């Protein structure tokens, strides 16, 4: 173990270490502690500028009730739940399937060309469906397919790389077209517009995770099922899905946190209170409650609570998900 275990050192060092531990924790969380404290302060405290001292009185229930009664916070909270849960569910279903496929099957390189056909043709359609454009697009796709095939790039690796790359791109490059797309689908300013986008985007990350997890499963189990005569869908449902439960749990908490905390897409795809999630809602309330720091703080705590609770309940899975790749590779 590194550094040297503290138990091997002198008694005095041990006490000093424990003390430093708690003090540094308090310093590290100081901004957060202050917010928690402020959220229960009285109006008099705020007016007197007593932000950092001991509260003059405790207004826990009053302040938090006020947050919910004086604003649309309840609505925002419900919206956030309604956005987050379907996203988690949808992503998990799609990513378990695609992760399984990418881990189990060998695909020819030209599937990348097939995969790109849809977006490229959509693009051609948006630019103008002239004969020249269509021919050009088909040529480009054929070239990609041919190159992948000749270079013996394995199709499943190419697709996997695509999903990974998609994870890291800046959101801004997607912003304008996704906004248009959502509008065209009639989902602008609705919960479903956000859900659709989030599922599509998170599937990239979740596929990466699931594929690696399934790749690590003992191959004999799957082979045994095949010999028994199970078809591929039975193998997926009866063999793989029960085995990937830990990965599903890890993904679920991670995606829950990511989506709950999303702010950018809430700004871009939603406008009105009826679909706004809590992050964007909180920022909007900050403008309304200019000096009512006790309310803003209480709102912040309310917004932070669900992911924090999720983290504490599923800590092991959460960390397993986040540190994927931190130990090998």
């Amino acid at each position, binding site marked *: 173990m590194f550094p040297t275990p503290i138990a091997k050192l002198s008694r005095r060092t041990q006490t000093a270490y424990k003390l430093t531990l708690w003090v540094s924790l308090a310093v590290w969380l100081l901004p957060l502690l*202050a917010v928690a404290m402020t959220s229960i302060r009285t109006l008099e405290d705020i007016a007197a500028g007593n932000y950092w001292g001991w509260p003059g009185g405790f207004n826990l229930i009053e302040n938090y009730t006020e947050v919910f009664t004086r604003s649309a916070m309840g609505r925002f909270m419900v919206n956030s739940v309604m956005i987050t849960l379907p996203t988690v569910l949808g992503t998990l279903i799609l990513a378990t399937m695609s992760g399984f496929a990418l881990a189990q099957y060998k695909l020819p390189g030209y599937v990348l060309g097939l995969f790109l056909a849809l977006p490229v043709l959509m693009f051609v359609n948006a630019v103008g469906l002239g004969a020249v454009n269509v021919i050009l697009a088909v040529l480009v796709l054929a070239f990609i397919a041919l190159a992948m095939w000749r270079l013996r790039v394995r199709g499943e690796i190419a697709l996997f790389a695509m999903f990974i790359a998609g994870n890291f791109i800046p959101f801004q490059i997607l912003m304008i077209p996704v906004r248009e797309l959502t509008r065209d689908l009639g989902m602008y300013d609705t919960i479903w517009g956000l859900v659709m986008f989030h599922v599509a985007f998170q599937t990239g990350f979740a596929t990466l995770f699931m594929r690696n997890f399934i790749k690590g499963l003992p191959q004999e189990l799957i082979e045994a099922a095949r010999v028994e005569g199970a078809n591929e869908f039975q193998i997926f449902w009866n063999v793989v899905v029960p085995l990937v439960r830990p990965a599903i749990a890890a993904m679920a908490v991670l995606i829950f946190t990511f989506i709950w905390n999303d702010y950018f897409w809430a700004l871009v795809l939603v406008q009105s209170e009826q679909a706004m999630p809590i992050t964007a809602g*909180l920022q909007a309330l900050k403008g309304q409650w200019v000096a009512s720091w006790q309310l803003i703080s209480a709102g912040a705590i309310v917004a932070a609570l669900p992911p924090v609770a999720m983290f504490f309940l599923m800590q092991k899975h959460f960390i397993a998900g986040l540190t994927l790749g931190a130990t090998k590779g």
Partner: protein
Amino acid sequence: MPITKTADRWRPGTGTTALRDDLTGSNATRQRVTWFTRNQMRIAPAVFLLPAMLLFAVYVIYPILQSFWVSFHEWDGLTPDMEFVGLGNYMELFGFDWELLGILVDDGESYWRALVESANDQDFWRAIINNVFWLTLFMLAPVFGLAIALFLNQTVFGIRLIKSLFFFPFVISQVVVGLVFSWFYDPANGLLNAIFGSFGVPQFSILSSESAVTFGIIAAGLWPQTAYCMILYLTGLNNINAEQIEAARIDGAKGWSLLSNVILPQLRPATFLAVVITVIGALRSFDLVAIMTAGGPFGSSTVLAFKMYEEALFNYRQGYGAAVAVVLFLIMSVYIAFFLTRMVRQER
């Protein structure tokens, strides 16, 4: 290439015997040979991949192509008419001017001076410079993260709880982090000024100072980022080969030399991941800027991600915004390519 070879590649490594059994009907369960059983090795991957690929194609790949296209246009985003302007948006971004090209032919040095002076979009350059600040200073997150991880890697009472509490800032929303820090920096009531004040430093508003604002936001961003790196390193430290450490200790290595010669090499995967995620986080920085300053004062804390959003949705210049997004995308592509090559090499 012979056809059989391609056909083989569709089948899983050792699954061909099962398939042959199916085809000949010699399987114990005696499945009927149907079109489905014969072709399931082709159907299954397609069915499993199709929904994810469909969504990904429509919501990720297509928008990237479309953004490039939009960046060659002048478009307010309200009406359907887009005016094609070629590289016009990019020329505006980088302050390119045909007249300047004449100067370049005469004298290269004065060209650059004229270019910088004529750049009509100072905010864009400000954003680039700020992104460089973000990138550089965010590299402190892996360093701090490692330091905290080393500090916490002990077994004392309550350490698990302490580790999770240290991780807290990463779990909460950036909106909350932004709120907490804007308040922390508040000149009238903020804790920072209260602390400085007790040392006799005069009141100072970080978020309204053009020179300090970016650093104030980066410090806020480092808080959750460090927590994340810390978790990566804690996991890494947990998986270190204990025998190697003992062997090195017997050889007399300790402290710094043990860390740099034995521990750090073993933490390489964690470091790689921490750096990649931190770089991406630095380039993606949007939430904190939007919440704490909205790019202000006078555009001094803007970054590419925020600049793009502002141009496209507030100034109704979608084409120009798309051009900023493309620049950001190209910068990011360098890092993505680096990461992907490493990953693909690992697969071989």
